[in-house]
């Protein structure tokens, strides 16, 4: 009797162990290029007719970080401002804009070569993001108003545009 019970129990446990599990494979498609603002820019007002992000003018340069998961899939395009998105009333044609984009930090030494292949047009710098990793870009911007005219009092906001464009 005991033997029969043992045989039945062994059979049942074997059947339980033999059941098929459905293994799942999970995956997540994450963004291959992300844009991070690590430092918000601030305009300093060193003289009545100048707004500048230069540290010497009391400003802060905006810094943008590009995180690229796989190299050679994206262009990084950064455009420094050539107009205010919000400001007191100005004669816009009287504002003289200048700016520059440069690499401030890299996570992979080969990224330093990005500056050699940069394409510059209008107020846009286009970098070929060939390496995986993070690259920090600093943007400088300055606006000079007319000929010895003072900027009217008020707040001024200008936009830097940082783009990831798939190749």
């Amino acid at each position, binding site marked *: 009797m005991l033997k029969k019970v043992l045989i039945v129990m062994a059979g049942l446990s074997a059947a339980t162990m033999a059941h098929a599990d459905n293994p799942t494979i999970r995956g997540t*498609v994450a963004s291959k290029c992300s*844009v991070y603002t690590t430092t918000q820019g601030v*305009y300093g007002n060193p003289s009545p007719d100048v707004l500048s992000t230069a540290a010497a003018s009391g400003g802060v340069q905006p810094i943008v970080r590009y995180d690229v998961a796989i190299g050679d899939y994206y262009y990084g395009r950064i455009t420094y401002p050539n107009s205010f998105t*919000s400001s007191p009333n100005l004669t816009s044609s009287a504002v003289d804009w200048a700016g520059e984009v440069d690499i401030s930090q890299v996570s992979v030494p080969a990224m330093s070569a990005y500056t050699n292949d940069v394409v510059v047009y209008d107020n846009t710098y286009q970098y070929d993001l060939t390496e995986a990793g993070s690259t920090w870009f600093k943007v400088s911007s300055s606006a000079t108003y007319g000929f010895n005219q003072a900027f009217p009092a008020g707040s001024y906001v200008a*936009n830097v545009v*940082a783009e990831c*464009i798939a190749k």
Partner: protein
Amino acid sequence: MKKFLAVVLVAFCGPAWGHEMSPTYVEFNPSYINNVLKTTIELFNRREDVSYYEIEVYDKDRNPISFVADNKIINLDYLEKKSIDVYIKNTDKDKVVYVCTLSRFIKEDVTKTNVSSRICSKAK
């Protein structure tokens, strides 16, 4: 040395705000409406300073192409993720090259530079 590294990390690791979008390459497939194609993009807002994103569809020369989405400007809170369906006309299928999202700001009374981020996926 470890202490020095810790100080450097603390000093340089300020807040960072990010804009993420996937997939890198979008594919337009037939939708439930005749002659209308659909693709889905996923947007993740890691920018604390941004709550709105605008969807854009462009041709190869960055000329805008008409499209339909639930909203062209999407409210997306910090750390929120959203799937967005974008619809185009079948006739525009060969013209569409980029599907982009651009961060939008609310007007503020501060003298500063904003960083607008735009991520563009390419149509296959």
